[in-house]
């Protein structure tokens, strides 16, 4: 006896029900030449939302600094400014490499795209290594008490949350390389990953300016 459940539309698909009607597609039609959003419009809800969280960090940091600018300056001068500067350059370079990978992939230069992506990945990982070196330095000299020194509270929270973003970005770049290996054209995911990477870069530029330069002044 065979059990025929294929026609039972009331069951969920995974229990053997009929697949839901594939006619119900709500995919927006796009006319040729229409202005398009990089990635997709919904992605920008995330990008702008995430940047507004960092924006709130920045505002509160500056607000708290008003109370004790001299103390902030003393703390901020403990940071290794060369590492911050090199990290800024590293992320800017990685952003360039991501753009060049995207362009290469669009024009079919898969080899160049792969090389650029490997370079961007190396930059991302290098950024993380330098960050850890700086953490060890800051914690090692015993001056920084993240729980009591407001500057270091913000330093560790902001750079920590940013580092989490970098690591997620690295995962996205690896996934992008998977798309490349299959020889696929630029997908929505690829563009979205590139936009995300630029956001991570942009956020770092502001974090670097505020923590290493403004607070130390």
């Amino acid at each position, binding site marked *: 006896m065979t059990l025929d459940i294929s026609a039972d539309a009331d069951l*969920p*698909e*995974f229990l053997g029900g009929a*697949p*839901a009607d*594939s006619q*119900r*597609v*709500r*995919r927006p039609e796009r006319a040729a030449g229409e202005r398009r959003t990089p990635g*997709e*419009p*919904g*992605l920008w*809800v*995330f990008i702008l*939302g*995430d940047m507004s*969280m960092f924006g*709130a*960090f920045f505002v*509160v940091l500056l607000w*708290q600094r008003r109370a004790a600018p001299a103390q902030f300056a003393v703390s901020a001068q403990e940071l290794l400014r060369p590492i911050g500067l090199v990290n800024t350059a590293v992320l800017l370079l990685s952003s360039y490499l991501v753009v060049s990978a995207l362009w290469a992939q669009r024009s079919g230069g898969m080899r160049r795209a792969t090389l650029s992506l490997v370079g961007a990945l190396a930059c991302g990982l290098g950024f993380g290594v330098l960050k850890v070196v700086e953490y060890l330095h800051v914690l090692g000299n015993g001056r920084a008490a*993240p*729980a009591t020194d*407001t500057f270091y*509270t913000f330093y560790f*929270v902001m750079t920590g*949350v940013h580092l*989490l973003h970098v690591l997620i970005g690295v995962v996205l770049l690896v996934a992008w390389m998977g798309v490349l290996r299959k020889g696929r054209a630029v997908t929505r995911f690829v563009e979205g990953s590139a936009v995300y990477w630029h956001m991570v870069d942009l956020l770092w530029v502001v974090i670097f300016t505020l923590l290493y330069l403004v607070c130390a002044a």
Partner: protein
Amino acid sequence: MSTRVLLLCAWSGPATVIVATIGFLIAGVLPFPLGPNSSVTEVVGFYSDSTRVAAGLVIAGLGVCLVFPLIALIGVYLVRMEGRTPILAFVQLITGAATGVVLLVPLLLMTAISFRPDRSPELTMTLNDISWLLFITPIGPFMIQNIAIGTAILRDQRGLLPRWVGYVNYWVAFLFVPDVLAFFFHSGPFAWRGIFVFWLAFVAYAAFLVVMGFTLRRAILDESKLDASEAVAV
């Protein structure tokens, strides 16, 4: 007619926010919650009006439980999005159930504190610390739930829910990240009462409940309209 039940589940999202907020206002948790640097007098004083505090917290606890029908509704949509192997739907259901519980337990604990306001102040202080830290810090289930929902929406080819809702879920997951800092700070913006912990989490979770509730409501209504027009066409 199951559309009505589905709509009710969708409304339970915004209802969670409304009922829990009313309960918090009655109990005095809102607008200004106790903080880790509140004095013993303040903490004991908060629980001293035990009837009002308990009543407010009971309402808030019931309100928080309204999230369960919404989680079930999200589960139904995720199952439909994923088809044959609805693994993210299961992840969402498991973690969603856990989020409800980790919100409910600290509220029950706070209600229990108000049960005996004349106990030794030190005990009240300790219990208050435990309930607040339990309330704020278990972000794991929330984040996994949001990532599961976001991934299911973005992988769905049919567009059952708008794609921006998927990205909102990723964003909300990120907004929960600073909550673990509550363990490390006794005052300032990263303490449990701080802007980046209690307030950010409160706003993020409220936004999640309202967005999911209203977009699911829209999807249910669109579909029932589609069903109706198909019935006419036949």
